[in-house]
C-alpha cells in the first residue's frame, strides 16, 4: 500500500517537473523589438512602454481572481484566432503568421466603408484617381513598430510581394512607382471601377527594410517563374517573432490562450486611440466565446449564436448590444443541373416552391436576414440599390407554395404513389440525398430541416453532411444531387460583380453545372463570361446597372441557386466598460464583415470608442 503511494507521489512530482522544465510554449516577444542603431532614442521609449504594459497586464489578470469593477488601464478585450506557439510568427506572408493581430497591427492606405463608399484615410492622407492611375500621398508621420520611418518604398515592397502571392489586384495592376518618399503611383493595365476596394484590401505589411530584398527580386523577375518560386520558398522560411506593422497596436505577448497587444505610442493617430492595449482570448469554439460574453470576460465578439443563447447573454449583461451588419454572403441551395430531374428548369421551380425558406432561416440562423421570393443573386441588404421595384415585378417568383409545386409536378407527369410520395413519369420512386458541410452547425441544422421539408412534401430526402475538406471539392466535381452553397458572395468587394463572377464563372457555376450561355431578358443567348468581364471593367454607372439587372434576370429565371438567408455578423458589444459605439445601423459596422476587428479599429481611430473611467 505504502509503496504504491510513494510511486504515485513520485509520478506526480515528475509530471510537474517535466512540465516546468519543458521549453515554455509561448514565444515571449517582449525583447523582440527589432532595434536598429539609428533610432536608439525611440527604442528606449519603447522599452519603457513595455514595462508599463507589463504592469498593466498583471493588474488586468488579477481582475479575474478578485473582481474589481473598473480596472485602471484601458484594455479592449476581444476573442480571436491565431496559430499556437511554436507555430506562431510575424511574417504575414507565410502560414502561421500574425493571426488575430492582423487589423490591429497593419493598416491599408485607407479603409473603404462598403455600405456607402466612404473612405477613412489611414496610411494615405489623400489620393488622386484617373482611369489609368491611382496616386496616393502618404502619411508623413507614420512609423514602423521597430522605429523605422514609413515611406513609399514600403508600399512598393508590399505590392510586389503580393505579386508573388498572385493577389487579384495584379489582374489589373501594371506596375507601382515611387516618385518620392511620400508618393506612390499605381498604374493599371486593366482599368477597373473597383480600384478603391482593391486597394483598401491591401494592408501595407512588408516594410522595405525587412522585405525589400525579396520585393526587388520579384520586381526584377516578374516573368521568371523559377526565380519567383525560389523567392516564395525563402520568404516562407522567414519567421520574425512578431509582426512589424504601422498600426495603432503592437503585439506584446502571444501564448496559446491569449494574445496581448499594447498601444503604439508613435502612431500618428495615437492621440485618438483611447486604449492602452488589446487583449485577445483564443476563440477555440463558439460555445466558449458565449461563456466569455456571459461572464464579461470580453467586451466584443461576433459568434453566430442561437436566439435563446443571445437572449440569455443580453439578460446577463444588460448593457450588451448587438449590431447585425451583413457578412456579404447568403446561404443557398444548389441543384445539380447535370442530372435529372434537376436538369429541367420546371422541376427546379416546382421543388423550390415546396421549400419554406423563411423557416429555414428561422431554424438555422435566427438573426440572419430574410431573403425575398426571388433568386436574383443580389445581396438582400443592397437589393434596392441595384434592382428597382418595376424590375422585380417582372421576375418569376419562387415563394413557398406547395399547391403550385404540386400542380407543376403533375404537369411534368409526376404522380403521388400509394404512400403519398412522388413517383416520376417512368413510375420510379423519387428520393434525394442532400449534402452539407459538416462542422458548421448552421449548415447541418439547415440540412436536416430542408430534408424534412422535402420528405414531408413527398420526396423522401436524406441529409448527409460531409467532412469539410471533402465536401467542397466533391460538389464542385458535380458528385451530389442537392447541396448547400454560398450565394450572392460579395466578399472583398461589396459589389454584385463579385457575386456574379462566382455565380456564372466560379465555384457556383461549376457546382450547378451551368452552360456557358443562358437566355437573357430579350430572348437571345447571353455569354456569361462576356457579361462578367464587362461588368468588371465598365466605368459607366448606367451601363453597370443595366449589366447587373441582366445578370440578376438570368440568375433568377434559370434558377441557378436558391438563397434562404443573408448571413449577418452578430457583433456583440458590451457598453459596460466601453462607450461610444455608433448606432446599430451605422455604416461603420459594415466594416465588420470580413474582419470584425477592422470595424473596431476604425471606430477607435475616429475617436469614437472610449473606456468608461
Amino acid at each position: 500500500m505504502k509503496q504504491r503511494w510513494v510511486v504515485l507521489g513520485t509520478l506526480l512530482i515528475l509530471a510537474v517537473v517535466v512540465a516546468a522544465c519543458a521549453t515554455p510554449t509561448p514565444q515571449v516577444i517582449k525583447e523582440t523589438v527589432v532595434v536598429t542603431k539609428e533610432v536608439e532614442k525611440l527604442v528606449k521609449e519603447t522599452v519603457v512602454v513595455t514595462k508599463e504594459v507589463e504592469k498593466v497586464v498583471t493588474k488586468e489578470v488579477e481582475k479575474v481572481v478578485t473582481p474589481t469593477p473598473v480596472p485602471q488601464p484601458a484594455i479592449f478585450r476581444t476573442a480571436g484566432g491565431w496559430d499556437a506557439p511554436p507555430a506562431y510568427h510575424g511574417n504575414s506572408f507565410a502560414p502561421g503568421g500574425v493571426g488575430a493581430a492582423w487589423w490591429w497591427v497593419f493598416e491599408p492606405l485607407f479603409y473603404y466603408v462598403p455600405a456607402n463608399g466612404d473612405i477613412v484615410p489611414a496610411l494615405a492622407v489623400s489620393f488622386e484617381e484617373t482611369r489609368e492611375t491611382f496616386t496616393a500621398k502618404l502619411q508623413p508621420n507614420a512609423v514602423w513598430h521597430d522605429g523605422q520611418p514609413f515611406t513609399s518604398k514600403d508600399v512598393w515592397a508590399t505590392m510586389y510581394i503580393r505579386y508573388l502571392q498572385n493577389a487579384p489586384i495584379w489582374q489589373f495592376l501594371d506596375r507601382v512607382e515611387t516618385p518620392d518618399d511620400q508618393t506612390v503611383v499605381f498604374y493599371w493595365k486593366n482599368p477597373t471601377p473597383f480600384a478603391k476596394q482593391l486597394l483598401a484590401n491591401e494592408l501595407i505589411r512588408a516594410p522595405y527594410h525587412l522585405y525589400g530584398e525579396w520585393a526587388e527580386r520579384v520586381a526584377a523577375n516578374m516573368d521568371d517563374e523559377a526565380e519567383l518560386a525560389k523567392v516564395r520558398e525563402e520568404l516562407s522560411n522567414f519567421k520574425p517573432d512578431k509582426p512589424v506593422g504601422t498600426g495603432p497596436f503592437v503585439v506584446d505577448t502571444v501564448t496559446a490562450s491569449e494574445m496581448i497587444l499594447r498601444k503604439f505610442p508613435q502612431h500618428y493617430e495615437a492621440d485618438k486611440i483611447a486604449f492602452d492595449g488589446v487583449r485577445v482570448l483564443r476563440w477555440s469554439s463558439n460555445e466558449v466565446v458565449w461563456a466569455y460574453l456571459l461572464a464579461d470576460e470580453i467586451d466584443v465578439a461576433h459568434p453566430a449564436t442561437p436566439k435563446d443563447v443571445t437572449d440569455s447573454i443580453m439578460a446577463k449583461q444588460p448593457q450588451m448590444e448587438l449590431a447585425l451588419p451583413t457578412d456579404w454572403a447568403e446561404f443557398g441551395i444548389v441543384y445539380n443541373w447535370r442530372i435529372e430531374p434537376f436538369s429541367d428548369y420546371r422541376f427546379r421551380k416546382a421543388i423550390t416552391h415546396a421549400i419554406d425558406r423563411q423557416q429555414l432561416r428561422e431554424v438555422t440562423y435566427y438573426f440572419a436576414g430574410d431573403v425575398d421570393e426571388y433568386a436574383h443573386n443580389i445581396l438582400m441588404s443592397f437589393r434596392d440599390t441595384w434592382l428597382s421595384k418595376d424590375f422585380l415585378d417582372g421576375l418569376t417568383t419562387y415563394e413557398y407554395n406547395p399547391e403550385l409545386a404540386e400542380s407543376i409536378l403533375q404537369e411534368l407527369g409526376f404522380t403521388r404513389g400509394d404512400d403519398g410520395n412522388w413517383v416520376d413519369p417512368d413510375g420510379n420512386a423519387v428520393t434525394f440525398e442532400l449534402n452539407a458541410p459538416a462542422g458548421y452547425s448552421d449548415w447541418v441544422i439547415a440540412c436536416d430541416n430542408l430534408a424534412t421539408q422535402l420528405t414531408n412534401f413527398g420526396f423522401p430526402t436524406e441529409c448527409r453532411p460531409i467532412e469539410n475538406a471533402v465536401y467542397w471539392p466533391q460538389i464542385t466535381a458535380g458528385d451530389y444531387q442537392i447541396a448547400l452553397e454560398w450565394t450572392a458572395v460579395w466578399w472583398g468587394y461589396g459589389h454584385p460583380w463579385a457575386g456574379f463572377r462566382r455565380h456564372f464563372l466560379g465555384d457556383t457555376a461549376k457546382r450547378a453545372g451551368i452552360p456557358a450561355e443562358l437566355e437573357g431578358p430579350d430572348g437571345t443567348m447571353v455569354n456569361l463570361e462576356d457579361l462578367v468581364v464587362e461588368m468588371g471593367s465598365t466605368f459607366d454607372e448606367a451601363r453597370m446597372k443595366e449589366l447587373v439587372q441582366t445578370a440578376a434576370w438570368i440568375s433568377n429565371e434559370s434558377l441557378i441557386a436558391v438563397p434562404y438567408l443573408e448571413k449577418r455578423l452578430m457583433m456583440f458589444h458590451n457598453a459596460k466598460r466601453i462607450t461610444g459605439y455608433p448606432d446599430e445601423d451605422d455604416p461603420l459596422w459594415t466594416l465588420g464583415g470580413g474582419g470584425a476587428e477592422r470595424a473596431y479599429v476604425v471606430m477607435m481611430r475616429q475617436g469614437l470608442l472610449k473606456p468608461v473611467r
Partner: protein
Amino acid sequence: MAVLKRIAVALVTLFFVTTLTFFVVRNTPGDALQVWALEIVQTYGISMEDAMKQVRAMYGYDPDEPVLSQYIRYVKGLARGNLGTSILYKSSVNEIVFQALPWTVFILSTSLVLSFSIGALLGMAIAWKRKTVLDPIITGYAAITGATPDYITALILLIIFAINLKWFPLKGAYDPAVKPGFTWEFIKSVLYHGVLPIAAYTFENTAAWALAMKGSAVSVLGEDYIMAAWARGLKERRIMTRYMGRNAMLPLVTGLAIAFGSMMGGSVLIETIFNYPGIGWFFNQAVARRDYGLMQGLFFLTAAAVILANLIADLLYTRLDPRIRLEE
C-alpha cells in the same frame, strides 16, 4: 533473449504501422485549401478567389514528387530521429512536439494516474464488499459519467468554478504575466491553471476504471488461492490488496498502457475548453488542413507511444503475475 525478441517484434510492428500510415495519410481525400481559404476570407476580408490563390502560393506541398521517394525520405528521416517537416509551418515536427507535448503529458498523465489509482481502489472495494451501499453509488456514478460527454463535464466545471465562483482561471496553461522558467511562481501558476482540466479528466474517467477493476476482481474472487488465503487466516486487507487486487489488475494494465500511449494524441477537451497549448490543437490543424508532414509526424508519435506502452505492459505482466513466462 525473450525480451529482445519482444523488442524486435515491436520494432517490426512500428515499421509496418508507419508504412501503412504513410500511405493512408497521403491518400486522405479532400482539398483543404478551400476550407483554409474560407477562413482567410472571413478574417481578412478578401475575396474567395484571392484567398484561394494566396493559399495555393503558401501551401508548400509538391504533389509531383513521386510518393515512393517521399516515403524513402521520410523513413530515412525517422531513422535519424527526425519526425519530418510541417509543410504548412515549414518548421520541424520535432520542434512542435517538443514544445506542445509536455503540456499534454502533464495534464493527461496526472489525470490518468489519479483516475486509475482511485478507480482501481474503488473497484477493488466494491468487488470485495458486494452488499454495501458503495456499489450502487459507484454504478450510478459510472452510468452518469459514461453518458455525459467529457465536453459537458468540462464546460460545467468551467462555468461553476471559473466563471461564477472565480476560484480557478478560465483558460490557458499559466498566467501570461508570469515569466516561464524554473521558478516557484511559474510552477504555482502552472499547477493553479492545471486544476480544472485535471479535475475534469479525472472525474470523467475514474468510474470506468472502477467498473473495469470490479469486473476483473470478481472473476479473481472465486479463485482457489483466495480461498486458500482465507484458510491460512491472512488478514482481510492483505488478501484484498495482495491476492485479489494484484491479480485483478492484470487486464487493466493493458488498458492503462494503451491509454498512456494514445495520450500522445492530445485531448480535444483540454485544447478547446481550457485553451491548453497541447498537442491536440496541432493534430486538429494538421488534419483539417491536410498538412501531410505534420500529420505523419504526429501519427508516428502516437503509434510509437502505443507500441512502446504495450511492450512495457507485456514485460510487466511477468512481474505482476509470475505464472506467465515470456515465450522463447
